[in-house]
């Protein structure tokens, strides 16, 4: 993974975080001054189970270069089992992305607890580096005609 | 049990010199247990302590040449009886995984390694793959009556996070193997305290001081003999025993066996293959205890009784 330098042009990364664990974890990282790349913007949701895959598609089609979803660790969900549903749903969704002509690596989901400031820093740093390695996503309108029968990975990639 | 499994065998330099009896008896025991050893062809010295004290890349390069020799045999699992060789070969394998290190080593050697290697001590294979239980089944002459102090030395299993063998603070391999042979194993809390290692050459007062402590404690336990798994430890405790005696102003007379020699006796192997005559402190008196009834010895043993039991139970 390339080192991020201050000159690297910022890319657009959208994060959907559950309020109880990951949003708290990002707060903990902030309180601890765990410096991170600035590309990511966080949307706060009650639970990772609230994430409708539509949100992610919408983000990627509207010009986001990467989308990150983060919730509570399995078995540690504030709503008992919301993250289980999220995991099931997002895992399936991840495999559908190539069908839409989107590189699978532009989307990740993970678990960060409210106490894991350093972990959040690592997640953000790694994911941002991953997106920078992929480069900016081509604007969706410019993408080649989609052929759903010939779905392959990363057709949007230069 | 690895009966029939083949390993590359690295005897180490002392195996043809100061610890010739260790090399001989290791081969004999492995043969009896079905561990097949193939000598590394034209192996070189691993550099021992001096090499890694001069440079880690140089040390790793000397080891890497040996492992490359193993590759010519089509083998990538190497055994050695000597903990010092083990440490060097093992560290080479471990350091080669570190970024940048491999390129440095490869710049020094003729043939860079092409495979992932594992290096273990002969003791580890006997203890983990053969197991003391299976060894016990093969015993033809039990060592009943022989009271042993097991001494492991520093290197074989420390640090645990790197060596992955036995307990790093209270190893059990020799204890259990010797018990499997029928010997009585005394609880020896100094089983890993340093004997002085290679410091005997530059200044033998160092080895005298450190080895002498081990000897004193072993004598206080009422031991008949030491059992060891390291040529350097054996040399410091056996060959330098008189020096240690002088240092502490007392005499010691404690034979220091390689564990493979005692296994050889218990497994009923040909005595000529065990090199018992090579020991400096004569083992005859200790060996004579074998088979003697425990009762005759009872009064003398009471001193260390309590902690001995505690340890055995634990």
């Amino acid at each position, binding site marked *: 993974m390339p080192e991020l330098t*201050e000159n690297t042009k*910022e890319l*657009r990364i*959208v994060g959907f975080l559950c309020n*109880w*664990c990951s*949003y*708290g974890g*990002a*707060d903990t*990282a*902030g*309180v601890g*001054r*765990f*410096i991170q*790349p*600035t590309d990511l*913007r*966080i*949307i*706060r*949701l*009650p*639970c990772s*189970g*609230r*994430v409708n895959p*539509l*949100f992610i598609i*919408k*983000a990627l089609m*509207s*010009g*986001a270069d990467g989308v990150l979803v983060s919730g*509570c660790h399995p*078995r*540690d*969900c*504030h*709503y*008992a089992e*919301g993250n289980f*549903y999220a995991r099931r749903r997002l895992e399936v969704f991840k495999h559908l992305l190539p069908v839409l002509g989107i590189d699978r690596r532009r989307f990740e989901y993970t678990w960060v*607890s*409210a*106490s*894991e400031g350093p972990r959040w820093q690592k997640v953000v740093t790694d994911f941002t580096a991953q997106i920078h390695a992929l480069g900016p996503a081509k604007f969706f309108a410019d993408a080649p005609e989609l052929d759903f029968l010939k779905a392959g990975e990363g057709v949007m990639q230069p | 049990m690895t009966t029939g499994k083949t390993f590359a065998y690295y005897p180490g330099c002392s195996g043809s010199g100061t610890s010739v009896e260790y090399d001989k008896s290791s081969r004999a025991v492995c043969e009896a247990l079905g561990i097949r050893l193939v000598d590394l062809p034209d192996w070189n010295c691993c550099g021992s302590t001096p090499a890694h004290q001069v440079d880690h890349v140089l040390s790793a390069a000397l080891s890497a040449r040996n492992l490359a020799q193993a590759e010519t045999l089509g083998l990538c699992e190497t055994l050695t009886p000597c903990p010092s060789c083990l440490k060097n070969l093992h560290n080479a394998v471990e350091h080669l995984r570190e970024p940048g290190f491999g390129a440095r080593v490869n710049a020094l050697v003729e043939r860079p390694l092409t495979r992932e290697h594992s290096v273990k001590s002969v003791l580890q294979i006997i203890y983990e793959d053969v197991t003391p239980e299976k060894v016990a089944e093969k015993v033809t002459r039990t060592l009943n009556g022989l009271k042993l102090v097991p001494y492991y030395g520093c290197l074989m299993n420390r640090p645990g996070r790197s060596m992955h063998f036995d*307990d790093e*603070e*209270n190893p059990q391999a020799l204890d259990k193997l010797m018990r499997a042979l029928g010997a009585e194993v005394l609880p020896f*809390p*100094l089983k890993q305290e340093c004997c002085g290692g290679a410091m005997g050459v530059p200044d033998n007062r160092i080895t005298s001081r450190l080895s002498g402590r081990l000897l004193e*404690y072993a004598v206080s336990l009422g031991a008949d003999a030491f059992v060891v798994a390291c040529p350097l430890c054996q040399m410091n405790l056996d060959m330098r025993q008189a020096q240690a005696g002088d240092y502490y102003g007392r005499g010691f007379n404690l034979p220091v066996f390689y564990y493979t020699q005692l296994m050889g006796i218990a497994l009923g192997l040909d005595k000529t293959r065990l090199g018992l005559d090579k020991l400096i402190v004569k083992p005859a008196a200790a060996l004579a205890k074998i088979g003697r009834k425990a009762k005759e010895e009872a009064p003398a043993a009471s*001193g260390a009784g*309590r*902690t001995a039991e*505690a*340890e055995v139970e*634990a």
Partner: protein
Amino acid sequence: MKIGVFICHCGSNIAATVDVLKVVESAKSMPEVVYAVNSMYTCSEPGQQAIEEAIKERGLTGVVVASCTPRMHEPTFRRTVERAGLNRYMFEMANIREHVSWVGKDKAANTAKAVDLVRMAVEKLRLDKVLIPKFIPATRKVLVIGGGVAGIQAALDCAEGGMDVVMVESEPSIGGKMSKLDKTFPTVDCSSCVLGPRMVDVAQNERIELHAYSEIASISGYVGNFDVTIRKKATYVDWDKCTGCGLCTEKCPSKKSYDRFNEGMGETTAINIPFPQAIPKKATITAASCRLLSGGKCGVCAKICTSQAVDYTQKDREITVKVGAVVAATGYDLMDWTVYGEYGAGRYPDVITSLQYERLLSASGPTGGHIRRPSDGREPKEVVFIQCVGSRDPSVGRPYCSGFCCMYTAKQAILTKDHIPDSRSYVFYMDIRSPGKGYDEFTRRAQEEYKAQYIRGRVSTVYPKGDKLVVKGVDTLVGEQVELEADLVVLAVGGEASQNAPKLAEKLRISYDGYGFFMEGHPKLKPVETNTAGVYLAGSCQGLKDIPSSVAQGSAAAAKVLGLLSKDKLESDPQTAGVDVKRCVGCRKCINVCPFGAIREVDMRGQIKAEVIEAVCQGCGLCTATCPQGAVQLSHFTDNQVLAEVEALCQS
């Protein structure tokens, strides 16, 4: 809509790395924003007043504050806008401190990010709807889990405040770790004299229902209305009949049972009462040690018992209770020190833990308060204390400081001198941590008055030599190795979260950290709350602490419970799901997915429709993400609102 945006400097916390004025300028051009201004400290009184005035003077109908995390001050600002006459849900926050100024170094990038977050908040606010909370009935009863000193304090304070309390303790007696201690620092008060009467108060208080030797099987429900199932473990003694006379314990022929209360320093009978001051003072049979229960012939206790209380056929049984709030006070365990082979890993009988030493010091302990070596019963003269055994040690996964060991070691050194005047104590320490009131003076007393020899350094190894223990170590202040032949070695073993803490946390739906300690709601402002409404923490389950701090937390948790349940009805959070019946096709997917059973099926003119039970809904939004028709929408987090946020970020 007329939106006002307030950008906080937070002193230099935000302003140092975000160009606040530039954010203000950008905000002015955002849709429906009629007013944007910066503020030094928005949360301060003048800061809040400025918001109220702006709402009134400019007729704002929605407010955005860009400052710290909403997890901190969202409730504060909601009250602010409410005071000025707005609905409290017509408010949004942009987190430009924790998520921007504190984690990014580049001022230009930070400023751009802050502008984005403000735009996102504005777009969400534009779709906010007025929400009105409802009121739900609450059960005015609290469950206290754990009967150590923190739980006892919480229970007694709640009862004092007129609240009914259900206390569940896993051991046969309450009292926790404190009941095992001989004395307490820094006053050297007798521990059981301090705690004993409080334990009796628990037993005698009519408002407190005690279930000892019991555990939590399950918890469901929500704040104000928890349903708890308690598993009462089989004691093989009918406690209603048992008088605690102790006759059975005298006659029991099985006398080799591990003595849990005495930390294995003595042995006890199969049927036993853990200690004289036990509450409840009832006998329990340890099945594994009982001759009859392990398949042999006996029955002595049943014959001897005058009240026919012994019942060998007893089984575990479960009861259910309804409570409105929960206090978790499950304490801690000692870490498994036998990972330390260099100290003998449990092989040497005279190397013991600090808690075992407490039992040797205690008059109610196995030696009657005389310090005797476990090996030979001899009185030790040279006693070595090793600190930080299992604390501050990343190699065994315990990098944290346990916090109380320095103090109890000083106490034990003092007590050793009291018990055996011609003894000498040696304390190996890394740092002396004694920041409490009177604490440092106490450690000085141990050294000056009681002549404890403090050695700054570590012990490398302990091994037996004859009937002594050789202790080898270093004094780093002189830079030399030291050696001593000791009679007894006491390890200041650190604490860890109790074994079952993570399981309980999952039942309570609260978070725990990497070590298993429960997470407080906020490290500064919500020390006894959790992120689950109605669940509170007290004592070491939240993080290791000494007795005064545990008691303080017990009282604090009780105050929170009393505050919460001071009214018969609780205000419910209106951020719940709702169903658009026109869109609902009755597929039942939302009903199946809801973890709380908050959605039910109703018949609407022959058609099946979903309906949300608002009081039960917790607002997770799982149903909203599941509904194929978009008919179920979580208010304040609707699909349209989230999509507007996405749009705001991506179109910029």
